């Protein structure tokens, strides 16, 4: 009888597993849904960065961020407002729809009063002392289609919401090296297609960091994260991005995404 039960369970699993998998959207479908989610033609928001080291020492930066689509091209600019030692620092990125074209990135350093061109392959480096990489900043709440192959590996409940679990692997070693990850596991909200949790594995296959997206609320009809928290398991450093004053409706001047605007600041 016992053998019969085990056999039955085995047969049931063998039969139903493909069916169960078939009911889940594929990794690429989920990625496409994430990227198809409305994030507005443009957005203005205040971003407060709270960085805490393993001893609990905290640094806080207040910034004003702007993002706007120019056709398929996305331009992002972040201006630092405080504290004094980073005030007027500004970062800008042109993210081209054609993945064959490298992004263009600039950093304005007030101490030098010069806008510095930054290599786009630096995307795996951490952004100005945070636990987010330049690539994380650029992607915002989206995912890179071209950099990863992906598959759906299950479902889970995160913060009371149904999510699909997607495992993403960089398409080759070079890309993995650029990104700084060997694997990324995403928990994607099954209704609103926002990544609620992401686990990043380092190049040596050790846990690197986990990013949580919280306080997701609608602003002007668009689902918006108000808190994104990154926990670096290697350094035990954490970064919280707290978004406020989110505005998708105010028109942003094209001139704000220029080198002269970076130099002049807000």
């Amino acid at each position, binding site marked *: 009888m016992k053998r019969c039960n085990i056999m039955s369970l085995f047969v049931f699993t063998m039969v139903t597993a493909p069916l169960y998998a078939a009911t889940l959207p594929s990794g690429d479908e989920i990625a496409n849904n994430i990227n198809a989610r409305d994030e507005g033609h443009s957005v203005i928001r205040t971003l407060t960065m709270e960085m805490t*080291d393993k001893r609990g020492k905290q640094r806080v930066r207040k910034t004003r961020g702007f993002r706007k689509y120019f056709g398929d091209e996305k331009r992002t600019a972040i201006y630092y407002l405080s504290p004094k*030692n980073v005030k007027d620092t500004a970062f800008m990125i042109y993210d081209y729809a054609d993945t064959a*074209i490298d992004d263009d990135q600039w950093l304005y350093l007030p101490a*030098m*009063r*010069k806008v510095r*061109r*930054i*290599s786009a392959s630096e995307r795996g480096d951490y952004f100005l002392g945070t636990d987010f990489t330049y690539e994380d900043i650029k992607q915002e709440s989206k995912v890179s289609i071209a950099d990863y192959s992906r598959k759906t590996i299950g479902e889970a409940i995160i913060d009371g919401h149904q999510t699909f679990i997607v495992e993403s692997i960089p398409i080759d070693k070079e890309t993995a090296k650029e990104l700084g990850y060997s694997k990324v596991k995403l928990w994607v909200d099954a209704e609103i297609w926002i990544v609620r949790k992401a686990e990043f594995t380092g190049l040596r296959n050790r846990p690197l960091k986990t990013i949580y997206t919280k306080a997701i609320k609608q602003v002007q009809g668009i689902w918006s994260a108000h808190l994104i928290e990154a926990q670096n398991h290697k350094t035990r450093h954490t970064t919280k991005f707290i978004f406020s004053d989110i505005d998708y409706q105010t028109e942003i001047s094209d001139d704000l995404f220029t*080198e002269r605007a970076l130099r002049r600041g807000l």
Partner: protein
Amino acid sequence: MTCSPKEHYVVAYKKLPVPLLITLLKPSPWRWPGSSLMQIPLNSDLHRRNKNSAPPNSFLKLLISVIFLISTSATAEISTSLSIDSEWGYSTETNNTEKFETTIKPEIEINLSREIKLTAIGRLRSDTEKHIDRENSTTRELREFYIETEIGRSFLTLGKQQIVWGNADGLKVLDVVNPQEWREFILDDFENSRIPLWAINSEIPIADSTLQLLWLPDQTYHQYATGNDLYAFTSARLVPQMPAAVNTSIQAVQRPDKTIQDADWGARLATFWNGWDLTLNYLYHYDDRPVLFRQLSMTPSGPLATITPRYQRNQLIGGSFSNSFGDITLRGEIGYITDRYISTNMITDNDGVVKTGELSYVIGLDWFGFGDTFISTQLFQSHLKNYQPGMLRNERDTTTTVLLRRDFNNETLTAELLWLHNIDLDDGLARPKVIYQMNDNTTLSLGADIFYGDQQGLFGQFKQRDRVISAIEIAF
């Protein structure tokens, strides 16, 4: 250019015998310690702070009127900040404290209206040791004072300001709009050593480009270390020399003094094209270094060289570029100066200077190959078009720089090494430094400045000036 053309740093004239020269230089003779080099009187003039940096009266009145009118009709939003920077320098050559300097910089920004902002930055600087700048160990100044406004899509900045051109680090080809303070050679940050000027600075968008137009009615020029100051130039390659038998008479410096007629002006067209950041630059200005014209005559007491320092008009035509390719960012500047005057030691030369064009360029490569690591190298070269024997510099001058920087602990700790090396004279400067961001308001640093090489070189002349520097900066 900052580091290469040697003759530009002319601040002294070598002459023997000393007693006779001292007589000629009265009433304010200067003398280099342990040498026969004499500081010519023009140095005190060159050194005088802000002699001409006061704004033209009409300019200042207009600015104040505009501010007053706006401030009376608008609700001003004010933000203030203050930074206190204290530096201790210890000479490893003399085992003495070289400087103990505190700099306080208050800053205020007033949004007079939605489109108009006033910025004022002051600076109080005091050095208890009085080695670097013996005459002005304590200074206070209104460092920057300007209003910014938008007219349509154009930006306008009126007032005392810094205008920075180019993309090179530590070397200057295009970054010559503002003069520089040389009291501490090139060891001080350009942010601190650049001398702000009264100017009208407009930036006008034209299609996808920006045209910057400058008008600078401010006759302020480089300020040099003088006499016994620690970083006064001493190299014979930097200062003209006369044979011992020739007497020398130094005349007063002839400075431009007509606000409108002697104003500098310039233009810069910047654009972004196919991934390239490109600029075209033009500056019509007075060279910030005086030309030392020499006239020889016979007197009853022997041959006499009369030196007349005079500022000369110049034109700079140039451009810059930058783009990134994978891990590498390529950047560069090129500039042609139409009328450079180089002093010559040839006694047969009529006026002691040779007029020449000068082509300068710098090419830099920034590499981002390792995480949190930045490696940057630059090659700087300048060529004289009309080189003649006896000139105080070579026909070609080449300097290389290497910058290695690595960040640790989420950019709270930074280690860096900047190395500048002149290939022609085999001298240079190494600057290792560690910077620690203790918290949002406090930064600590510890570094060293190590000179080496031929004492006739720009860097080598300071080989007895090696030092360790520690600093604390508090900003809020």
